[in-house]
């Protein structure tokens, strides 16, 4: 099935790879060639086996059967160190940074820059910092190398991950959903870098659920379904624009794809949530907005615009200050900001953008995570495990979550399926106001549609939603109005005809858009 025949000497040749996890067959005889100087796209539904295949190449998972050859020699990768030695660098789907270390130290973790000569036992701070600057600048990331990673937003952390992978000077660079949390500006910079690397003969594997991106940058695209390689196509074969995306999506899911934004229903006039003059020290300044009954309100902005911080402030995860006359009212009553528990009690749920760090308890099972925020409803007074499983099974069906068993540990799920459980957890709290921060991060195109439909169904039932997303299409297709934030302030509220891609970009970057790009 592979079109490898025409390439005489692939850098990496994957042959008959099978990977079993207990009862799950994640990969089922995959053959694949990766050539120097090409960008190879890898697409497939959540749980199709993309990350697992890449982990095999990265030496993290040992295949049950099959072989990997590099430069024509069969290699037995025993760990990430082996892969690194062979020139394979990897950006994982989930972040793997050490929170307490600085950005620069993280970038060179395990490959510390040391002094020469007698000082070789000591890290050379100046060289480390300069190296970090260089790689961050390469991808236009405006991050100080001396900041501790724990102070960065998730998108900034992703940029650090990318810089780290680039700094390896690898021959093969594997990128597992590098842009899922990045906004258009960072994505553009990253794709430019990818093209530069290709020009230098680096082989790049690019995994993404953003098919437009894949079609734009890749030379060949591999489609995986249920652990099998379905086909390899070149973007040219699929046509252009939305047609090409729709065709690729159909190949992924194995059926025709409809338009993925169901029609919006009008919101109702009543105001559910009103925020006035809210500030979060150093992150958000005097933000104010209203959310109507049954409305889906989008928040757009670049990295560091303060959208997540604003949401975290509203639900009591960050200390907030109000200007005179400011405050939050929920259904007309002033809302006292305490901690998250008060917010949940009051009917506000917040899905965090960081599913690994904040969203899920990775050591626990699927059902345990689903019910965690609404556990009281399952206690009579002992936990009713049966009811728990019924509810979980319901979400698994509704959001087409791919799981082995309902009590399987959540970290055995693929990234996109974990995201769906994180979402289910908050849906289960039955909120009045649902704040979703990157709700479809890493979710495949078919499941996105189901999530959009679910959100709309909720608004019909009287729930109002705030959606923060780095994906402009999602905001424009799903939301009634889009608020654009820039550097901690609300720059514009767009609705109707004004809510266009250009409009959002214009306000997100500011009037002096070129300045904003320039100082990165």
């Amino acid at each position, binding site marked *: 099935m592979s079109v490898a025949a025409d390439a005489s000497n692939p850098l990496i040749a994957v042959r008959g790879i099978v990977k079993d996890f207990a009862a799950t067959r994640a990969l089922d005889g995959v053959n694949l060639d990766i050539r120097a100087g090409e960008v190879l796209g890898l697409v497939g539904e959540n749980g199709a086996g993309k990350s697992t295949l890449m982990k095999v190449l990265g030496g993290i998972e040992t295949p049950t059967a099959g072989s990997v050859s590099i430069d024509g020699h069969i290699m037995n990768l025993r760990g990430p160190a082996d892969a690194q030695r062979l020139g394979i660098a990897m950006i994982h789907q989930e972040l793997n940074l050490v929170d307490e270390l600085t950005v620069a130290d993280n970038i060179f973790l395990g490959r510390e820059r040391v002094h020469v000569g007698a000082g070789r036992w000591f890290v050379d701070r100046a060289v480390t910092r300069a190296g970090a600057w260089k790689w961050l600048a390469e991808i236009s990331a405006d991050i100080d190398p001396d900041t501790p990673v724990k102070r960065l937003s998730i998108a900034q952390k992703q940029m650090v991950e990318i810089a780290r992978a680039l700094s390896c000077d690898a021959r093969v660079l594997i990128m597992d959903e590098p842009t899922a949390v990045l906004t258009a500006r960072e994505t553009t910079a990253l794709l430019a870098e990818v093209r530069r690397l290709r020009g230098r003969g680096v082989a790049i594997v690019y995994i993404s659920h953003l098919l437009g991106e894949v079609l734009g940058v890749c030379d060949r695209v591999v489609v995986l379904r249920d652990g099998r390689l379905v086909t390899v196509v070149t973007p040219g074969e699929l046509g252009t624009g939305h047609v090409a995306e729709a065709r690729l999506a159909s190949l992924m899911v194995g059926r025709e794809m409809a338009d993925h934004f169901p029609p919006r229903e009008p919101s109702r006039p009543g105001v559910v949530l009103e925020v006035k003059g809210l500030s979060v020290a150093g992150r958000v300044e005097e933000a104010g907005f209203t959310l109507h009954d049954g409305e889906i309100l989008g928040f757009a902005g670049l990295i560091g615009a303060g959208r997540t911080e604003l949401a975290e402030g509203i639900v009591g995860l960050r200390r907030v200050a109000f200007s005179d006359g400011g405050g939050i009212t929920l259904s007309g009553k002033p809302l006292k900001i305490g901690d998250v528990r008060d917010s949940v009690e009051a009917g506000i749920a917040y899905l965090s953008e960081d599913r690994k760090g904040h969203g899920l*308890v990775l*050591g626990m099972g699927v059902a*345990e995570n689903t019910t965690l*925020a609404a556990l009281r409803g399952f206690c009579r*007074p*002992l936990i009713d495990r049966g009811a728990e499983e019924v509810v979980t099974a319901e979400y698994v069906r509704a959001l087409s979550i791919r799981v082995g068993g309902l009590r399987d540990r959540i970290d055995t799920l693929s990234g996109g399926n974990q995201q769906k459980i994180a979402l289910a*957890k908050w849906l289960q709290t039955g909120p009045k106001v649902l704040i979703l921060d990157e709700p479809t991060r890493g979710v495949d195109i078919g499941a996105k549609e189901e999530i959009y439909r679910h959100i709309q169904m909720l608004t019909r039932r009287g729930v109002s939603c705030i959606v923060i997303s780095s994906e402009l299409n999602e905001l424009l297709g799903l939301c009634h109005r889009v608020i654009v934030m820039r550097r901690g302030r609300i720059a514009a509220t767009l609705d109707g005809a004004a809510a266009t891609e250009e409009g959002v970009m214009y306000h997100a970057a500011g009037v002096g858009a070129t300045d904003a790009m320039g100082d990165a």
Partner: protein
Amino acid sequence: MSDTPTPSQPRPFRRWLDRLPQWAGPLAALMLLVIYTVAHEFLRGGGLAFLRPENLINIVYQWSFVGIIAIGMTLAMTLGGIDLSVGSLVAFIGGLGIWVMNTVITAPGIIQSVRESAEIGITPDYGAFRAAMAHAFVSIGVGGSEAWGAAAGMAVMLVVGPLAGLLHGVLIAKGRISPLIVTLGGLAAYRSLAQSLVDGGEFRSSSPVIFGYLGQGGIPLFGGLRLPYPVIFFALAAVAAYVLLNRTRYGRYVTAIGCNERAAVYSAIPVGRIKMLTYTLVGLASAVSALLVSSRMNSVSSGQTGLFYELDAIAAVVVGGTRMRGGAGTIAGTVIGVLMLGVIGNMLNMLDAPVYLQGLVKGVVIVAAVLVQRRDGRES
């Protein structure tokens, strides 16, 4: 399609292994130990001394005091915490309880002795506080009563233990001090308190009969055997903690906090309250243990009682498969861990191992037991 099992199932033995509960390893080790001991005894011509019911009951009896604490420790360690103060707390609580009990029972004597000292102009044997307590007990009509004395002593223990635990919990949850530090402080402080109450000596009970009942008595079984009450308390504690950890909201939250505290905060879990409750429960376990151990000996040595309980309890918990980092705890494992420590000691005695080498054997077994459990390599 990955939700239907694939037809070819690789390495069935591995899959079978993966399904076993965490405590299967320790249980297997325990069986091996038992079999080895039995065989050795038998070949030596010693018959089946080890397997005799009184020997087995005795092992559990001796270890039930640590066992009850280990049950509480399992909760703390699942939470991602630890409690080093338990051993000292046992000495302090036990001593304090006996001290109060003695004050009740000997109240008339205390009053008389104080009065006589005053008459002949020497310093009394008892401080003003204790004399005042004695007066109070006499005035409410319980002074001199052995039953009331024992009841008061036990009540004090059951109140002070959880209070001490709550104090730890507050310092950890509200003061944001690491549990290791807080309870390390407790380890030093409580023993010192106990010793200062009796100048480093012993708290000897003035209750000849009643106070010793719980620690020394038991339910008669067949053939003159008795099931000692401490063993029953150990079993009850294990069952209660099992239900708590696996079937209640509290237990679910403990596990969640131990796994990922930040996610727990984001999930609107009352993290502070859960921590305070957990350390309070550890304090309660220490109190029950103190009550039983002081009752059993009918005295408390301020320097020796409860010594190294914290280490034995932690050893039992980790041998049983609970992770030091939190998030995964099994009560069944802890019970097996306690039994294993008991069996090792008993076995070494039967094999006439040199006394001074017993600690070495224990240490090796603990480390080895934890080593073989590391099936999920990445997680440890």
